[in-house]
């Protein structure tokens, strides 16, 4: 049994193992070969926050592996009757679910889940903290486009302070040897970065200069206090578009974890343009989630 809770605490060999496994699943599926079916498992997909791509790709990953899945959402469940996370988790366990994929608005919520669920727990996004499978999808996409991650310059641009995608990508990419920069206005940057392996840029052109990968983050309007950021100002100073991309490396790729605010953090033409790998990120989401799900039920435990 293997949880997947954070990338920060995930050892590099486990990270590489997950990516290798995702590549294997991708080649099987793209070449039309059958995915080896193991014991049928039943996993719960427990989403306390809205999701399209993470939920759908977990479902699809489960389908490919021959697993069954049960969907929960905060809105339609006993959570609305005031049930605690602990009791919800105990209910899932008592209903004989064998694994749980969970997204919740509280950073570190998986502590409670791991304590009571007994089976493997996959973090599908905890508050502002981490989103490990998104980072795996992004790493796989970069590997495919660039051949390797070691030595690449990666600029993560935007609302880093509120971004769980950034907090997972910072760890996965630095563990795999990239140099990571975070770029954005001061009010959207973590104020203290002593414990994060990044360099900080407040000027978008300096931050993107020479970057091999430019990752725009969604402006998390639902997480921000109103009035902190003017959209017009943000667009003018930090939007990823053809102009800003001119200072990046010539073959730079453009990424976005979605859902996009088109015309805000990224302009339309760039999002759909030749440098964009946004749709590959989504497709790779299925394969890395297959890797995470099958690893969850491995007899052999890998460090996590």
């Amino acid at each position: 049994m293997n949880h997947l809770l954070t990338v920060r605490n995930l050892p590099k060999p486990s990270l590489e193992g997950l990516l290798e496994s995702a590549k294997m699943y991708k080649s099987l599926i793209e070449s039309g070969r059958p995915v080896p079916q193991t014991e049928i498992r039943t996993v719960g997909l427990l989403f306390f926050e809205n999701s399209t791509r993470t939920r759908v790709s977990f479902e699809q990953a489960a389908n490919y592996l021959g697993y069954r899945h049960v969907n929960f959402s905060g809105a339609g469940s006993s959570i609305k009757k005031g049930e605690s996370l602990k009791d919800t988790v105990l209910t899932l366990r008592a209903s004989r679910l064998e694994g749980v994929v969970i997204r919740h608005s509280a950073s570190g919520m998986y502590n409670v889940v791991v304590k009571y669920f007994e089976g493997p727990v996959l973090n599908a996004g905890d508050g502002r903290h981490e989103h490990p499978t998104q980072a795996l999808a992004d790493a796989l996409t970069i590997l495919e486009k660039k051949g390797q991650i070691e030595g690449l310059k990666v600029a993560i641009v935007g609302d880093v302070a509120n971004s769980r995608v950034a907090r997972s990508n910072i760890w996965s990419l630095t563990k795999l040897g990239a140099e990571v920069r975070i770029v954005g206005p001061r009010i959207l940057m973590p104020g203290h970065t002593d414990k994060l392996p990044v360099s900080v840029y407040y000027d978008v052109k300096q931050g993107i200069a020479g970057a091999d990968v430019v990752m725009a983050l969604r402006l998390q309007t639902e997480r921000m206090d109103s009035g902190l950021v003017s959209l017009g100002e943000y667009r003018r100073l930090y939007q990823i578009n053809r102009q800003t991309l001119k200072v990046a490396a010539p073959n730079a790729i453009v990424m976005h974890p979605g859902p996009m605010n088109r015309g805000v953090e990224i302009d339309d033409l760039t999002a759909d343009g030749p440098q964009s790998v946004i749709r590959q990120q989504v497709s790779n989401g299925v394969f890395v989630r297959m890797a995470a799900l099958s690893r969850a039920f491995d007899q052999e435990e890998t460090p996590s």
Partner: protein
Amino acid sequence: MKTLFRSGRVLDPSNGMDIYGSVLVEDGHIAAIGQDVASDDSTLIYECSGLWICPGLVDMHSHLREPGQEHRESIRSGTQAAAAGGFTNLCCMPNTSPPLDSPVLIDYILDKAAAPDAGGVFVAPVGALTKGQLGEQVSDLSALKKAGIVAASDEGAPIQNSQLMKRAMETCLQLDIPIMAHCEDRSLSSVGSMNEGAVSALLGLVGVPRSAEDIMVARNCLLSLETGCKLHILRVSTWGAVELIRQAKFLGAPVTCEICPHHFVFTEDSIHEFDTNCKTTPPFRTQNDLDVLLGALSDGTIDCIASDHSPYAPYEVDVPFEEAPAGLSALESTVGATLTYVTHTGMLSPLETVRKLSTSPADIVGLEAGTLQPNGSPVAQITVIDPNVEWTFDVAQTFSKGKNNPFHSHQFRGKAVLTFCGSEIYRDPFFNEERFILP
């Protein structure tokens, strides 16, 4: 009936006494103190060699949760925890349900605390500074004072409006009671759940900046200086708060302050990831703060040590970190933590340790306690501390209903082993049977 605390280190900060000697209690009152105190055949003897004989400890900051929150603590369980922690006196905070804003609630607390099944300690209620602790209208403090409050506070819901705070201070000045102020600018602390710093950035938690505390400390000190109202600042946690208080005292403001053991032991780095037992208000800060706080405790800028006993039901803390309530159930870990981290490290002498835990808090709220002098207290209040006993703090062994405490499983050196308030109210298993001699 005579009771003799024989041949211990007698520490009485109220007159600077630090001698080897004995204390005789007769009919519940301290009758004699010194090196040659006679006993007779009818005397019950506590043999105190190697132990400290101190005035009963005073905790000026506890939450007994009653009325209304008995799932967390009751006056009975809380006073029993106090007795087991070495306290003979405690101030209970007004953030109950409903808050302590009317005399009938004060009567209720005093009655419950005096009941035979309670812990046997004196309880001095702190009244709600504003009605309902809503920060809108000052409570009827003269009626509350008549009912028995020793101070007024809005505790965890501090007054944000400076004009109202000034009016409250003028009222309290007239009544000669101190305001106990938790200092937090809510517009800055917002939804933060730990110190704003490198660890909060790492864990994706919204931080509480030091300035949220410092700004309110500055405001309240300035208002105290301007009005002359006694101000006691609850649980300082930042170096900035300490420097502001130092300055306010220098300028002559009647300001005192306390520190809680968890704020001189833990930093943001000691938080085991997302452990809700480590969530406090204010949050654990940094080593830099801790160094300044310890220095200020040593040089007297920080007047006393308080527990900020904040028990919660287990289910309330078994939730994600951001959703958890803040605080720890601390009455029974306060002495152990203080001796281990402050006394044995040389920051405070034994006499100063007892001053911070007994004489100073008694003076600040005007309690007849904190002294071993005959007639200093309505009944004899004595705490015997074994300064060297090594023990493991285990929440399962505590009297408090609250089991939330980050000191759980910590090794402590030093423990209150006997608590006496008119009569024996707690005797610890560490107080060896052989030390207890019946007439």
